[in-house]
């Protein structure tokens, strides 16, 4: 099950599986983000191209005002997907 929420520190926290059926839920929260923000992947087990597309669209929107996403705590498997898609060249990943 996928979940996306803001934690007490103001970070976006992703958990579960971010597949093509979850994009509306993700956009619902991410479209409200207007400042640079950390996105915590610690509890995210899976992401597909649909999830990458949501993050890309959000990054592009924020980039228009000089803001950005900072992705943290990516698992090895998810890091590999970012690498294959060359998204590691686009996002700041810690």
């Amino acid at each position, binding site marked *: 099950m996928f979940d996306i929420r803001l934690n007490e520190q103001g970070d976006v926290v992703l958990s579960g599986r971010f597949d093509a059926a979850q994009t509306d839920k993700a956009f619902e929260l991410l479209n409200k983000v207007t400042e640079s923000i950390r996105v915590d992947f610690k509890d995210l087990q899976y992401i597909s191209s649909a999830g990458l597309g949501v993050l890309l669209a959000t990054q592009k929107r924020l*980039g228009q005002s000089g803001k950005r996403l900072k992705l943290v705590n990516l698992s090895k498997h998810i890091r590999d997907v970012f690498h294959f898609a060359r998204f590691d060249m686009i996002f700041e990943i810690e």
Partner: protein
Amino acid sequence: MERSFKRSFGQLQHVFDFTNEFALAHSINDKVRYVLDLVVEELFTNMVKYNPSGSGDIQMRLVLEQDEIIVHLADPDSDPFDVSEHRTVDLKRSLEERKPGGLGIYLVQKLVENLHYQHHNRTSTISFRLPLE
């Protein structure tokens, strides 16, 4: 193992339940399981997205043969669309120029070396082999 799924993104959880059942039955490791789920999702959603009004369900078959998983996905009512054809996605583009379209099929082609497509009597069948590492 074989199962059919309605043409809906909402079916994805059932698709993953199916791959999970297969993975558990055959002790598939996490890395292979991630690739299996990712490639199956990209191919399934591609079928749903570009042929939402086709009749009949999408059929999926998973077979373990020696040290490989053999995966078949079939759409019984579709025009030809060969996902194994080379399609260029320019991943070197800057953020401003990047678009998500085509990324899923690019990832499939990157992760699976032996993608095979067949179209016969309006049935599109995609198959691939995934080595157990």
